[in-house]
């Protein structure tokens, strides 16, 4: 028995860094106890983290596969596992298994194209992996636009990295926005969907969306108004998951399992699913 | 005495729908066979063609009033057997539905039958069942079996506690009396066991539980918006027993939770796919409450204070209660 690893059986991970990003989001750096990356992954894939006795939950891997040293997870406090993680300190061990799901098609569909990333709030977490992957292989892609918004300046995830690294890259345009006016903020104010329309993107690109459902809904409409087609827009879904391998039935929508057939979907693929995700 | 027939109930339902008293009817809908009725909402006279009423219509509709009174624009018609009326009153006591939105028609009942008991006699392959004092079952194997209704009465009807309706807007037929029931006999049998024997009895029964929750979900006393056993934020949430101790906890905690509110309608044991006599747990509580605080029947009166939630200076002290058994 012992020689065949069961897909439900995790490996031990250890938290080597905790970064406070926003009042309710922290980014955790995880390696195995011998200091290695637990496993390789592709941009957009997820992993199951667990604290024995507390529970197991699925998180998108926010670090890029090009980072060969560790994995990072940006986690918003919103349930028992995440609440426990938020009080965890460096050196805390946990369990990790994965990678799960279908990644973004970075090496075929995305290659040679202009890319438009649109994120709201913690929705940047799954996109950071693909953004950094594309930045790493900069010459494989065209122009990159990043629209990112959150409630306030304090709620912007990865702010330092965005300002110091993304915004200074050649051919990468970062467009930040916050919901309401705030002291010390001289950037754009307003909701993401409106900002996308204001920016008036041309349709010669592939768009990738991630954020709260309401943002997705209105941003999609905005993109359609600008002339984008469903086949040009990708997103990544989040549903309750337990096994991560398409067996426990929890994330089943239509004939698809979000953990296995997703979480990355193109919008025309989503149209074929019943409306319950 | 007026015989309560399916046609009589349909006639009543149609007239109440047509004169605008009600806009929906809670009733039993015909199934694939002669015994598998489904509780259903009938919205018009035409849909009542599938309405049935016979000896298989055991389902207690009182709990369905919680959801259906929220849907009706005027009133919902419900047919209540005597035992159902106790659940009806208990739910009103607990403010679970709006009485103004219900038109309750009481119907006499001479006991419902249990298909499992019938099948145990007839064998598999039931093609037709003709109800009456004598039940005639014909099978697809060209056999005909005659069964005395008394031999296949549902367990709860064997020890029926009351033929009297304690709530209705209108009564069809004649009302009956509260019965001298032998319903505590089985409890006494359990009480006369040694602790070890009793433990073994319940261990044997409850170890069959598959935690389908049917007993809880059908129970008119279990109307919490969110059951503690379903709430992931609760430390007792579970779907399977992690050990044999936990196995018993679900049912014992549930029995405690409905103590003083359980009317002994017997739905829990009726729906159990594993035939666990869950009603015995509740009956033990009812018997003890009767002994300790004087006879009390939950649901007999709307607004009555159950002894467990009604302190009086004459109440037994905890120690006395234990000795008093």
């Amino acid at each position, binding site marked *: 028995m012992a020689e065949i690893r069961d897909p439900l059986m995790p490996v031990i991970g250890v938290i080597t860094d905790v970064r406070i990003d926003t009042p309710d989001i922290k980014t955790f750096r995880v390696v195995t106890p011998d200091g290695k990356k637990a496993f390789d992954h592709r941009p957009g894939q997820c992993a199951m983290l*667990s604290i024995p006795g507390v529970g197991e939950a699925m998180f998108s891997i926010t670090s890029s596969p090009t980072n060969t040293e560790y994995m990072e997870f940006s986690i918003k406090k919103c349930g028992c596992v995440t609440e426990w993680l938020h009080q965890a300190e460096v050196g805390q061990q946990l369990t990790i298994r994965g990678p799960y799901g279908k990644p973004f098609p970075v090496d075929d569909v995305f290659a040679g194209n202009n890319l438009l990333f649109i994120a709201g709030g913690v929705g940047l977490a799954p996109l950071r992996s693909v953004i950094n992957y594309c930045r790493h292989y900069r010459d494989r892609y065209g122009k990159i636009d990043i629209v990112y918004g959150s409630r306030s300046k304090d709620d912007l995830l990865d702010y330092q990295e965005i300002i110091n690294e993304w915004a200074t890259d050649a051919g990468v345009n970062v467009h930040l926005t916050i919901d309401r006016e705030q002291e010390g903020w001289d950037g754009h104010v307003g909701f993401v969907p409106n900002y996308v329309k204001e920016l008036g993107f041309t349709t010669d690109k592939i768009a990738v969306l991630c954020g709260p459902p309401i943002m997705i809904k209105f941003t999609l409409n905005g993109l359609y108004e600008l002339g984008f087609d469903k086949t040009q827009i990708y997103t990544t879904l989040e549903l309750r998951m337990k096994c991560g391998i398409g067996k426990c039935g929890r994330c089943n929508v239509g004939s698809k399992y979000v953990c296995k057939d997703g979480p990355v979907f193109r919008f025309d693929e989503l149209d074929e699913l019943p409306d319950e995700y | 005495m007026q015989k309560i027939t399916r046609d009589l109930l349909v006639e009543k339902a149609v007239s109440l729908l047509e004169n605008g008293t009600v806009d929906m009817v809670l009733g039993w809908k015909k199934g694939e066979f002669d015994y598998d009725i489904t509780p259903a909402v009938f919205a018009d006279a035409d849909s009542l063609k599938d309405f049935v009423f016979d000896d298989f219509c055991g389902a207690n509709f009182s709990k369905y009033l919680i959801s259906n009174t929220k849907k009706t624009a005027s009133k919902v018609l419900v047919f209540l057997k005597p035992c159902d009326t106790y659940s009806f009153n208990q739910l009103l006591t607990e403010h679970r539905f709006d009485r103004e939105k219900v038109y309750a028609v009481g119907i006499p009942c001479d006991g419902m039958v249990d298909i499992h008991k019938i099948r145990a006699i007839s064998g598999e392959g039931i093609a037709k069942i003709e109800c009456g004092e004598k039940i005639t079952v014909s099978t697809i194997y060209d056999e005909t079996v005659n069964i005395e209704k008394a031999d296949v009465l549902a367990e709860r009807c064997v020890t029926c506690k009351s033929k009297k309706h304690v709530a209705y807007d209108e009564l069809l037929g004649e009302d009956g009396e509260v019965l001298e029931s032998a319903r505590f006999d089985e409890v006494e049998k359990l009480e006369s066991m040694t602790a070890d024997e009793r433990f073994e009895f319940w261990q044997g029964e409850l170890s069959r539980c598959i935690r389908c929750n049917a007993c809880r979900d059908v129970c008119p006393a279990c109307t919490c918006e969110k059951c503690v056993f379903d709430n992931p934020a609760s430390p007792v949430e579970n779907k399977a027993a992690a050990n044999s101790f936990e196995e018993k906890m679900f049912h014992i905690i549930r029995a405690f939770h409905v103590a003083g509110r359980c009317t002994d309608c017997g739905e829990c044991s009726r729906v159990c*796919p594993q035939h666990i006599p869950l009603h015995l747990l509740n009956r033990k509580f009812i018997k003890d409450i009767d002994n300790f605080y004087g006879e009390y029947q939950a649901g007999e009166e709307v607004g009555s204070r159950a002894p467990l939630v009604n302190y009086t200076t004459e109440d037994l002290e905890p120690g006395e209660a234990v000795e008093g058994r």
Partner: protein
Amino acid sequence: MYRISTQSLNTLFEEISRVCTLYIPSENKKGDSVYTRYEAGVEYSNKLNTVRSPKDFFFPHMENLMEFKTEGKTVQLIDIREETEDFVVFGVRPCDVKSFEVLDNVFLNEPVDTYYKNRREHGVIISLACNRPAETCFCGTFGIDAAKPEGDVSAWMTEGYLHLKPNTEKGEKLVSAISGILEECDDTAVTALQENINNIMKKLPLANVTTEKFGGGKTEEFFNAPEWAALSESCLGCGTCTFVCPTCQCYDIKDFNTGKGVIRYRCWDSCMYSEFTKMAHGNNRLSQKERFRQRFMHKLVYYPENNNGLFSCVGCGRCLAKCPISMNIVKVMKTLGGKDNG
């Protein structure tokens, strides 16, 4: 083909249980048939269906997956898997045998569930043809032949004899291990029985229920059907149908703190339960109608779409017999499949 006198059934059971653990259907004190570990005194029950399906043998109600020890900030994982011993299950009905194929497609597809695979490899199935199907039976709807049960060894109970025919290597091995008490025979008696069963199957009240309207690619056609509202109207949201179903395989994974460590276990779960899809920040199936629809859409549309048209129902009839409100897949198929269905 081999046979043994039905008078000697206990001899057969003794002989098999000498080889390995044997489970046979036996009546409990409530008169329900349940798979019971055979030992002297356990009586075989010829009742058609066990209350719980034999899926328990491979996908039990509850099983421990692994253990953890935690101390300070450290976590230690303990692999508690052990090689299962060989076991034989006798008297598995043709519908239930087919259910293993439905489960295999889930658990043995990559990535393979090693817990399930372990038990599956060590289990030997002796099936049994149905001499007296019930009115609730509709295995024929799913192309299952009640007269020709599959499994490692097929068995038929004819007048006075139990006939055995091994189908697989595991079956051959078992039969040869007990060959001392078996006699070889031709298949005349079995053929006659099969003809009789086939005639009965045609007379069953649900014989005409068909899957014609269902299958992969029908999501759009059925998902928004107005009929779901009335079908699910009285559903209690309990898990009875799911738990007695031989093909339902949704599960939950939970941790149990024993005080000495943490056991991670798996248990059956039900898409009928209100919390099934609940996340920290929402639930994508809020009403019982949506949850009810999911169960039947999965069996009749989604599963076949992913598994070459195989339906995730074998017509065993357990849900027909056990649902507290007598709502079931037959009523769903008849309502959604049009007037002609059944």
